[in-house]
C-alpha cells in the first residue's frame, strides 16, 4: 500500500510541479530586450517599404524578399512577444497545425484556380 501511495504521490507531484516549473522558470525577455526587438521590427519594416520602389527588385526577387522579411517579423512576434518559443509543445502544435494547414489548403485552392 505504501509503494502505491508513493507512486501516486509522484504522479501528482510531477503533474503539479510541471505547471509551477513552467511558470517560474520561463525565460522572459526584459523590457529592454522588448524595446530592442521592436527596433529590429521597425528596421525590417523600413526595408520592406523600400523594396517596391527599387526597380531592380521587381518581379519574383522582390516578392521573395518581401516574404522573407515579413516572415522574419512574423516569427519574431510569435516567438518572442507571444512567447511561443518558451511555451509547452501543445501550444506550439495548435499554432503550427493551424498555420500549416491553412497554408497547405489554400495554396491548393489557388493552384486549382491557377491563380498562383
Amino acid at each position: 500500500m505504501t509503494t502505491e501511495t508513493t507512486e501516486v504521490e509522484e504522479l501528482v507531484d510531477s503533474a503539479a510541479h510541471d505547471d509551477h516549473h513552467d511558470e517560474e522558470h520561463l525565460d522572459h525577455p526584459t523590457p529592454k530586450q522588448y524595446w530592442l526587438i521592436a527596433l529590429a521590427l521597425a528596421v525590417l519594416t523600413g526595408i520592406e517599404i523600400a523594396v517596391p520602389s527599387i526597380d531592380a527588385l521587381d518581379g519574383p526577387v522582390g516578392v521573395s524578399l518581401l516574404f522573407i522579411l515579413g516572415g522574419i517579423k512574423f516569427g519574431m512576434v510569435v516567438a518572442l512577444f507571444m512567447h511561443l518559443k518558451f511555451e509547452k509543445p501543445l501550444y506550439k502544435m495548435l499554432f503550427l497545425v493551424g498555420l500549416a494547414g491553412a497554408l497547405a489548403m489554400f495554396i491548393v485552392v489557388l493552384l486549382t484556380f491557377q491563380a498562383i
Partner: protein
Amino acid sequence: MTDAAIEAAQGGHEEHHDVKPVRKTAMWVFLGSEFVFFGAMIATFLLYRNTTNGGPGTELFDIPFTSASSFVLLMSSLTMVLAHNAFENKDMRQTRVWLIATALLGSTFLAGQIFEFTEFIHQGLTLPTSPFGSSFYMLTGFHGIHVAVGVMLLSAMAILSFSGRLYDDRGLNVELIGLYWHFVDIIWIVIFTVVYLMQA
C-alpha cells in the same frame, strides 16, 4: 495520499485549481483556427486581386500612408508586451499605462483604416464594385473588426485595473488579451505584405 493533494492537481477545489493552462489552451485553439479564417479571406483576395470589373485596382493604394499605420500597429505589440510584463511584476499602474497606450495605438490604426477606406470609396472602389473590391474590404474589414474588439477588451481591462479587479486567474487576463492582440498584429503583417507591398 491525501485527497487535498489530488484535488489540488486535479482541480476539484476552485481556489487550488490552476486555470492558467486551461484558458491559455483555449486561446491557442482559437488562434490556430483563426489562421484558417484569415487564410480563406487572403486566398479569396489573391484569387481576385486583378478582377477589377472595369473599376479601380491596386493603383489606389497609398503605400506610405499604409506603412505608417502598419508601423503604428506593430509598435502596439511592444506596448502590449510591456503591459503584460508590468502585470507579471504586479505593477497595476504601469500595466494600466501600457494597456491604454496599446488601445490608443490600436485606435490610431483603426482611424487610419477608416480614412483609407473613405478615400478609396471616393475614388470609386466599393464592396459591390468588383470581386477585387469585395475581397479587399472583407479582408481588411474583418481585420479591423478584430482590432476594434481588441481595443474594447483592452479598455475594459484598463478600467477594471482601477478597481483592483484585474486578476491573473479569472475572466479576461492580460496575458490572454496579449496573445489575441499579437495575433491580430501578425495577421496584419501578412496582409500588409500580400495585399499592399506585393501589388505595388
